[in-house]
C-alpha cells in the first residue's frame, strides 16, 4: 500500500475508529453506573444485617463482616478506576472525533472503504448552517 493511500485510509477511518471507541467507553461507563445503582441497596442492607448479627455473635465480624467490607471496598475502588480511566478515554476519543469531523475529514470523493450511506451522513457543511441558494441582492433605497 502506497503512502498516499495509507494516509487516505487513516484519514477516512481514524475518526470513525475514535467514534467507535467513544461509543464503547460511554456504554461501559453507563453499564458500570447502572450496575452500581442496582447492587448498592442490597449491599448496604447486607452490611446492616451483618452489623446487627455482630452485636450478638462475636464470630460474625472477623468471618463475615470484615470480608464483606473488604470486598465492597475493592469493588468501589475498581469502579472508581473504571470511571477515571474509561472516562478519560471517552473524553480523548470524543476530542479526536470532533477534531477529525471539523478539520481532518476527507474531502468529498476521497473517502476510502467507507460505505456510501455513512459518507453522506458525515459529509456536509460544518460550523455554519447549510448555504441557501443564491438570492437576488436586496437594494436599499439610497438615503
Amino acid at each position, binding site marked *: 500500500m502506497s503512502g498516499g493511500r495509507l494516509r487516505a485510509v487513516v484519514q477516512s477511518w481514524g475518526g470513525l475508529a475514535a467514534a467507535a471507541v467513544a461509543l464503547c467507553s460511554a456504554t461501559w461507563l453507563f453499564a458500570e*453506573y447502572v450496575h452500581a445503582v442496582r447492587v448498592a441497596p442490597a449491599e448496604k442492607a447486607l452490611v446492616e444485617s451483618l452489623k446487627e448479627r455482630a452485636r450478638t455473635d462475636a464470630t460474625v465480624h472477623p468471618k463475615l463482616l470484615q470480608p464483606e467490607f473488604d470486598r465492597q471496598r475493592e469493588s468501589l475502588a475498581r469502579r472508581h478506576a473504571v*470511571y*477515571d480511566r474509561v*472516562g*478519560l478515554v471517552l*473524553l480523548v476519543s470524543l476530542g479526536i472525533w*470532533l477534531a477529525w*469531523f*471539523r478539520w481532518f475529514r476527507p474531502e468529498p470523493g476521497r473517502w476510502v472503504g467507507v460505505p456510501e450511506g455513512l459518507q453522506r451522513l458525515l459529509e*456536509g*457543511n*460544518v*460550523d*455554519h*448552517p447549510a*448555504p*441557501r441558494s*443564491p*438570492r437576488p*441582492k*436586496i*437594494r*436599499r433605497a*439610497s*438615503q
Partner: protein
Amino acid sequence: MPNPPAGPPSCGGRASRPLWPLLLLAVAFASSALLAQYQKKPPDFGGIYAFPTPTHPEPRAAIERGLDVAMLAAGLGLAAYLILRRRSREGVVLLSMGAIAYFGFYRKGCTCPIGSIQNVTLSLVDPRYLISLGVIAFFFLPLVAALLFGRVFCGGVCPLGAVQDLVLLRPKTVPEKLERYLRWLPYVYLVVAVWFAGWGLPIATGASKVLVARRFLICEWDPFIGLFRLSGSFHMLAIGAGFILVGMFYGRPYCRWLCPYGALLSILSRVAWKPVSITPDRETYCGQCADACPFGAIRDFSADRATCVACARCYECCPREIVRLRREGIPAKRYVAGADARGAS
C-alpha cells in the same frame, strides 16, 4: 456588477460611540463593588472584645490568583484583537481551545465570571461574606470588555461557550417565535440565581415555615463543571452531555437560553463602544452572513448587539472579507460554498 449603495453606518459600517461615558460607567460599577466590601462593619460596643476577622481561605496562592486575572484580561484583549481587528475565525477557535484548556480543565471551571455573580451578590447582602479582588475582577472585566467591544468574552474566553462552539457540527435554526421566548430565560435565571445567592427562599404557609438556605444555583447546575473536573454526580454529567448533544445542532444552547452572565453582557453590549461589524468596508447586502450565523444574531445585515456572541463566523462568509483577504495576500481556505462565487465586484 454595479456596487450597491452604501448602507447606514450600522450595516457593516464602523459604528462607534464616545468612549468616556462607558469608562465612567465601568469605573462606577467597579468602585461600588469594592466599597461594598467594607460598608457594613460590625457594631462597636466598646470593651475589650475584638471581633475576629472573618477568613475564607482561598484554594490558591495570591500569585496564582493574580495569574488567573492576568490570563482573563489577556484573553479578553486577545479576543477583542482577533475578532475586531484581525477578523479571524481561526484565531477565535484557537483562543477558545486555550480557554477550555486553562479556565476549563486546568482551573476546573472555577472561578468563572458566571458564578461570580453569586459571590458578588452575597458579599453585597451579607457583611460576613468577603470576596477577593480576584473574584471582583472576574466579575467586572468581561462586563467592561462588553461595554467596549461587545460580547468578546462569550466569543473567545468563556470555556462554557467554547465547548458548545466547538461541538456545533450541524447547525439548525430555531423558529423565530420560540427563540424570542427562550431569550427571556437567562434574565429569569439571573433573577432567581441572585435571589437564591443573596437571600435564599423563605416560604411561610400557614403555621409551617419552610426556609431554603442560600444556594449558589449557577454553580450547582453548571452543566460543564463535571466535564472540566472529570467527575460529578450522574445527573450533572447527564445534563452536561445533554447540552453537548443539543449543542451539536443548535448553537450554544446554554449561552443563548440560560446563561445569566450572558444576560448581563447582552444588556451592556447594547451600548458597546466598538461592537462587531460584519463587512470590512462596503456592505453588499448579499445576506451570506445571516445565513452563516447559527445564532440568528444578524438582522437587517448587521449584527444584533445583544445576541451576537462575537464568534466571527460571519467573516468567513462575507464576500467583501474574501476580497480583503485576497488583497492582503492571506489564503482563504474554509468558506461557505457560494460566498466566493458571489464575491463582490
